[in-house]
């Protein structure tokens, strides 16, 4: 689960990570007042979940309260396009107005899990503001990595070692080390999957400050973090994905025109891959799960056909725990409720109760295209979608 920058900063401040003074607002006139309160120089920052906001014109420096208001007016309500939003962009509903600070130097800092080492690690680099993936590709030695014991936390000597490796000295090194420990504690306490500060600022006075902050969280641990669940912003998520999540379905919207409904995450990915292999483009990832109810299957089917880009549907079910007759009943139920659909629907059923499942489809008042295996299904599907033009 992702949250906004201003929310991440709220969390980090609790762990003694200093940030610029700021307030969030959805109102341009209020942005003016906040800027005035901060002494007249401020930064207006669009609050959306995607990164790269500056490149899309979502971050502006204002030299006066009037300018802050003008920037806020321009940014609020805009469709902000960044390298991470896709071409349609993301609507901006809130801005963070922050006191402008003097920048002497910028660093990169993040805590994440190193899956290979099975330990959390602090990553830092002197190339602040840059995408860490670019740094990793161009100059991997420029990244400092410090693994730490998840239960002991990042120890002071480790934090000092990182500060030293980054070339920090004196008061700045001491303050940075304290900040590193705070970030590591925040990461573990909140069950985060990523806690990133990019850039981490060194001011002219030698202070350290989180100029930007990004946090995302382990969805499996949200049951013990009600405060973080309350930060979820549904407006930032795809409406079809939100609808799917209400039914406990794992759905991810993609750019293609061939929808697919599958049971199991691995088989669902493999089904997307085989659609592509046969020259089609998958419209989504959808795992209906092992114990999907008839209602959930019905909801899933409606979500698939509600996507206007979809030209054909593939249902690929290998019934283990998920009984194929139950899936078939859900699909037929959805079709009845929809009064049929104009799209070709290719079905491949295998596994538990497959004979009953196939019979239910055969008896239904709809012409399903029946496939015998995955390759057969993909071939028939791509042909059918092409025929739709």
């Amino acid at each position, binding site marked *: 689960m992702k949250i906004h920058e201003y929310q991440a900063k709220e969390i980090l401040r609790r762990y003694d990570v200093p940030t610029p003074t700021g307030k969030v607002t959805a109102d341009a006139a209020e942005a003016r007042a906040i800027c005035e309160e901060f002494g007249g120089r401020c930064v207006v920052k669009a609050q959306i979940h995607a990164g790269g906001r500056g490149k899309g014109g979502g971050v502006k420096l204002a030299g006066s309260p009037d300018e802050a208001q003008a920037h806020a007016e321009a940014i609020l309500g805009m469709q902000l396009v960044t390298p*991470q939003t896709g071409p349609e962009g993301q609507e901006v509903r809130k801005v963070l107005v922050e006191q402008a600070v003097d920048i002497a130097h910028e660093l990169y800092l993040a805590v*994440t*899990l190193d*899956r*290979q080492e*099975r*330990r*959390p690690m602090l990553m830092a680099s002197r190339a602040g503001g840059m995408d*860490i*993936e670019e740094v*990793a*590709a161009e100059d991997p030695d420029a990244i400092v990595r410090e693994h730490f014991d*998840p*239960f002991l936390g990042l120890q002071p000597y480790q934090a000092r070692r990182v500060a030293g490796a980054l070339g920090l000295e004196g008061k700045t090194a001491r303050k940075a080390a304290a900040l590193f420990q705070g970030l590591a504690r925040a990461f*573990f306490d909140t*069950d985060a*999957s990523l806690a990133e500060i990019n850039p981490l600022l060194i001011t002219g006075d030698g202070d350290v400050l989180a100029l930007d902050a990004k946090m995302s969280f*382990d*969805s*499996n*641990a949200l*049951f*013990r973090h009600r405060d973080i669940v309350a930060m979820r912003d549904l407006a930032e998520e795809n409406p079809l994905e939100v609808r799917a999540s209400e039914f406990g379905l*794992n759905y*991810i919207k*993609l750019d293609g025109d061939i929808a697919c409904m*599958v*049971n*199991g*995450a*691995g*088989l*669902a*990915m*493999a*089904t*997307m*891959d*085989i*659609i*592509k*292999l046969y020259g089609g483009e*998958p419209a989504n*990832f959808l*795992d209906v799960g*092992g114990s999907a109810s008839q209602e959930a299957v019905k909801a899933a089917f409606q979500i698939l056909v509600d996507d206007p880009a979809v030209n054909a549907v593939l249902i690929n079910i*290998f*019934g*283990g*725990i998920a009984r194929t007759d139950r899936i078939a009943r859900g699909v037929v139920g959805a079709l009845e409720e929809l009064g049929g659909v104009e799209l070709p629907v290719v079905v491949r059923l*295998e*596994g*538990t109760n497959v004979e009953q499942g196939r019979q239910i489809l055969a008896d239904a008042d709809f012409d399903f295209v029946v496939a015998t*295996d*995955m*390759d057969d299904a*993909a071939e028939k599907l791509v042909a059918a979608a092409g025929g739709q033009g």
Partner: protein
Amino acid sequence: MSIWVSNDTRLLVQGITGTEGTFHALGCRDYGTQVVAGVTPGKGGQEVEGIPVFDSVAEARARTECNATMIFVPPPFAADAILEAADAGIELIVCITEGIPVNDMLKVDAFLADRPSRLVGPNCPGVITPGQAKIGIMPGHIHTPGRVGVVSRSGTLTYEAVWQLSNVGLGQSTCVGIGGDPVNGTSFINVMSAFAEDPDTDGVILIGEIGGTAEEEAAAWIADNYDRPVVGFVAGRTAPPGRRMGHAGAIVSGGEGGAEDKMEAMREHGLHVVESPGEMGSTMAKALGA
């Protein structure tokens, strides 16, 4: 022969009194597994269809000599169930539960480091030795006894591979689902080492997916240590970066974990890589000259 699961397996089911626990305990017993005990704290003394229920794993172990456990405990309590099983010295711990927090699994990982128990999973379908015993939720009837091993991070994709194998007349020695979580117990390499020591496994289908680097590590290990055929597939070539594809561990992030890199590593290390997930069985048949 086979690995880890056989006629000698004496199975305990943790969380046996829940709906899923009961259903699958009986499913395993129907398949032929010796299901000797169940554990649900506070329900000791009860029975589930003739299977005695105990309050603790230690008690179940002392009374029934169970040597393997299958865990159906809900996610917030599942890590504790694994720790309890390891503390009682259970040799094989198979955790089916999906949705355990990563931080809980880091604890489990540290706890198991100096203990002899083997953990398979979590978030996995389990382990089956066809014709002998199954520990897990896989549909037993699609399997046939034979000489091909299967190891996979995915459940239904494993069933797909097994079904394809059975269709081309190849039975399976043992099939192991290692699970879709970023921090799990048994790795691809652990399973491959066991298959390497099994004279009755002639080849292995290894099914990976996006996220992490386990497939690359396994491919390198296989090149140095395993000389029988291995058919490889990696799911998620079409997955967009930065999105978690159903499984907690299935995510391409920081330029790492992409399917193409994994398949390339498999090819470089001599695995028979299939482009289509529909060709796992037929490719193994060709590789074995069957």
